[in-house]
């Protein structure tokens, strides 16, 4: 029985709008690797340039945060479900640069 990864809204443009993708592997990391092999555009949004999961990317195995399990080395069983759930963060301060043009208002 394959495993399933639930895809949040902002990543669905990279999975042909699918809300869930079937993947296979023995660990959480292998399932995520299978996902990014099938949908390469996801890689830069999930991982840093150094290959680490971005800190605002939360991954749950069934309903448990993998940070409290064995992270990407957490073994998975047939039929387990992974969910990628965003944290959304930001705030004022030093402006990003360069930005092109002005944000339009009205």
């Amino acid at each position: 029985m394959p495993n399933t990864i639930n895809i949040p809204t902002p990543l669905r443009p990279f999975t042909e709008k699918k809300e869930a993708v079937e993947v296979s592997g023995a660990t959480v990391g292998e399932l995520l690797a299978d996902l990014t092999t099938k949908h390469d555009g996801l890689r830069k949004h999930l991982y840093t340039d150094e290959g680490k999961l971005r800190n605002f990317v939360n991954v749950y195995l069934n309903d448990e945060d993998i940070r409290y399990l064995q992270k990407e080395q957490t073994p998975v069983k047939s039929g387990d479900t992974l969910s990628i759930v965003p944290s959304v963060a930001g705030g004022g301060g030093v402006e990003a640069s360069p930005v092109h043009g002005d944000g339009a208002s009205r």
Partner: protein
Amino acid sequence: MMGIRLDRGIDEAIRAHGIETYPNECCGALIGREGVVTATYALPNTTEEGPRRRFLVRPSDYQEAEKRATAAGGDLLGFYHSHPDHPARPSQYDLDHAWPFFSYIIVSVRDGVSEAMTSWRLRDDRSVFDPEELHVGGEPPRGPAMS
């Protein structure tokens, strides 16, 4: 340039939330369809890094926002937040934490009064936020994309 339209009352709701939480940042979800925001969902700012300069939507609140969007027959189109006493332009921190696809609406609140409101989208290579046109109120434009 892509664009997003705020249905009647949405602009006012975002500004009111920014004023209510001033001098701290507010945050909330944008719910709608086909580039038109028809509802906002105010969320708690759960940052532990100082709410005057940071906001955080925790995963459980994100999931609730996505559920609400689906229940309303729409999509989660993005998030809004305020920049107290700072311009309505994305910070490096905003860029570093941005998700693709979403519209990020920023409202500047200065001395408790709301000022400019802007909307931004992360470029696909994550290098920069691009501004998008923000249309406020009125009827949605007619055309195939909106039908």
